[in-house]
């Protein structure tokens, strides 16, 4: 049973991955949290741990976080083996301690993926995502040259579908959850957002081609496990991957190149 509102959880044991640097060997270290309010968020529980470590003269645990509202995509923890922990459609920073019970042993690890090297402790380097966007995740439109916004009507269902895909927060849970470390859900979410819109048509195929190829350069390949969708805090639908693959194949045909993917 999970704790009820307004109570304290006691006797938590945290097994936290500690690693001094990218090349250092890492190991789990065990810490105790004697008592924490069930109102606290998971990251606030880590704040409490860090205060305690500093009090004891030890290094605080390094982890990425910022907005703590589930929108910036900074937070990134494997909690008991699950990307972003046990609550569906919820980023780590939105997870609250009331989802846990007293006496629990909670295992906290960084994203595990070769494309996201560990920087320190629970912090990883996700800049490969930026490389994918730089390769084509945009609509070319220099400042100042745009026509009046209402000259480009966008049917509501199309705008809604584009928005569904655009909600991706770039957290990388999809990659961390994937047995192959594939970034297809992230990449396809951006391809779908831009390729669904009328504004995105001019670069549609070029975009799909260069983003997919950059993705392949950095990440593993997708074998349709579907773990990504289950881990995604924004519940991005795996359907976007089919759309990306279709546009990629068309791009290849258009360019009379070999079809590299089936």
């Amino acid at each position: 049973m999970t704790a009820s509102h307004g109570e304290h959880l006691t006797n938590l044991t945290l097994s936290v991955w500690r690693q001094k640097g990218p090349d250092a060997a890492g190991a789990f270290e065990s810490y105790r949290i004697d008592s924490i309010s069930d109102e606290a968020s998971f990251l606030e529980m880590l704040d409490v741990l860090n205060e305690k470590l500093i009090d004891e003269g030890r290094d605080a645990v390094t982890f990425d976080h910022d907005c703590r509202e589930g929108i910036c995509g900074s937070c990134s923890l494997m909690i008991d083996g699950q990307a972003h922990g046990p609550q569906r459609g919820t980023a780590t920073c939105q997870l609250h301690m009331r989802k846990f019970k007293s006496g629990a042993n909670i295992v906290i690890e960084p994203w595990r993926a070769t494309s996201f090297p560990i920087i320190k402790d629970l912090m990883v380097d996700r800049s490969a995502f930026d490389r994918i966007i730089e390769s084509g995740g945009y609509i070319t439109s220099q400042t100042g040259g745009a026509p009046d916004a209402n000259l480009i009507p966008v049917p509501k269902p199309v705008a809604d579908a584009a928005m569904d895909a655009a909600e991706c927060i770039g957290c990388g849970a999809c990659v961390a959850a994937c047995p192959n470390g594939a970034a297809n859900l992230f990449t396809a979410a951006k391809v779908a957002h831009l390729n669904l819109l009328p504004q995105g048509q001019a670069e549609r195929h070029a975009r799909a081609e260069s983003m997919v190829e950059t993705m392949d350069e950095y990440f593993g390949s997708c074998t349709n496990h579907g773990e990504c969708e289950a881990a995604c805090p924004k519940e991005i639908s795996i359907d976007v991957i089919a759309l990306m693959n279709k546009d990629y194949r068309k791009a290849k045909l258009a360019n009379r190149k070999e079809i590299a993917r089936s």
Partner: protein
Amino acid sequence: MTTATDPRLNAKIPEGAIADKWNNYKEDMKLVNPNNKRKFKIIVIGTGLAGASAAATLAELGYQVDAFTFHDSPRRAHSIAAQGGINAAKNYRGDGDSVHRLFYDTIKGGDFRAREGNVHRLAEVSVDIIDQMVAQGVPFAREYGGLLDNRSFGGSQVSRTFYARGQTGQQLLLGAYQQLARQVGLGGVNLYNRTELVDTVVVDGRCAGIVVRDLLTGELQSHAAHAVVLATGGYGNVFFLSTNAMQCNVTAAWRAHRKGAMFANPCYTQIHPTCIPQSDPTQSKLTLMSESLRNDGRVWVPLNPGDARPAAQIPESERDYVLERLYPSYGNLAPRDIASRAAKRAVDSGRGVGPLKNGVNLDFAAAIERLGKDVVQERYGNLFEMYERISGENPYDTPMRIYPATHYTMGGLWVDYELQTTVPGLYAAGEANFSDHGANRLGASALMQGLADGYFVLPYTIGNELAPLLNKPIPGTDHPAFKLAEQEARDRYSRYLGTNGKRSPDWFHRELGKIIWDNCGMERTQAGLTQALADLPPLYEEFQSDLRVTGDGASINQTLEKAGRVDDFFQLGMLMCRDALERNESCGGHFRTEYQDEEGEAKRDDENFAHVAAWEWNGDPMAAIRNVEPLEFETVHLATRSYK
């Protein structure tokens, strides 16, 4: 009590009628020939809405741009968290909106403490922003016919707010980030991530560049440029608890201030009425709940202090619907600052609700009865879900609890019409500057201002400063001023590491925040501010002697980063209190209890305070010098802001 106008505070407002000024400026400004643009290096610090849009556009124009952010990716900037929307005077509704009306609403909303020329330009370029963002693929909400949808927001009588679900900031930032990413891919922008500005360097009165710290290695590095743009966001986290992202901080602006950039109106901070109250002492930040909830929620507290019964057991006759009672015509929709103060007064009177008695009820029972649960769910379903996730309570069954929280800072680096600070060559854009919102910002106007500055203002105005520098040498990073700044930064970070005291940076931050919130928050008094100014220096001394930072300076160390930021927040906090103490009037977000009318409304003093207070560094925040830029109202008539 005001000091004389300082010639350095010449706003350089162009000649002409208000509606012609920006065009006149553009016609008269100096241009840099396209082939010469690549000879200029521009540094942009911050890649939120203001910084990403500026960096991308400057690179498109052909300048060499180096962009810096302490985040791992530009997409994480605090702009990502904005929910409600962005204003623009498109008049797509045909409801009488116009550039002039947006200009007027912004001046009035700012309680007549903003500069007319800047605000009018903001209203003018607002329409271009929407065109620009749509062309980039921002999926704004649409009507069934495919055209753009609008909603209305507080402080205006027209529907001019464009939105993308509850994630407008996210979609706008992703648009600007993608445009920046394109430039990074093309080689037009060098992007330095996880890199923090720790000082600005001034040589012969001009900004010569910056010193940054690589957060992964602790290494300090100098960068020289022809111009530096600070787009580093606001300083709301001086309160410790705020709706800002955890890492928002004042360091960039503060370090520039210490090098000669004047800091304007630091006491102008905005409190948002509908946030989820603090639930336990370990809490790290506050979460905003959309203001739209006040359309159907009723704000109430128990009539009797100490009434601890659950809401459902308190009969109607023992409830006080505070806003409906005090503001019968606006009721629960009273403006932000007024609603916030009413909630504070209710809680201060011992009638707060919730386990910590630190909130007021926002009750939907009447709306559910009137409209049905389905309609309420359709309107607010996602917000109710978010509330439940955080508080563990279901707002369909029991009232939400809300309380005001710090949300935005109108004050910031003083800039002229060109967005140039008092240090030539150093610019400030977005929330980091003070320019457009006066003493209070209207909802959905910060996103507008950030993008206006970055896309449509700076790319023009920066050329005026650069043109005369063509083919002239600028100081390189081997200049002694860079070496000195590096050494100072090195010493500073070593000091934090070497203090070996007992308290963590977060401990000091929390203590600082308490003092600022209690004395320079929603209501300010002479006595409170004087007390804060007595309490802050000893606490700051304790910070300097009893700080404990574990870890080292040669790999990523978030405790060390935090120490540097808290140091600067301390200094800013003192300046804020001084500014609030010297502004003997109430205006917008600055409410001095001594200056209110019989009905508790803010009383401005236009005779003595229709000016910008621009503070000049003088070695110590307690010794900063107050300079003044008078505000002239040629177009708008000063009037009492009334929402009765």
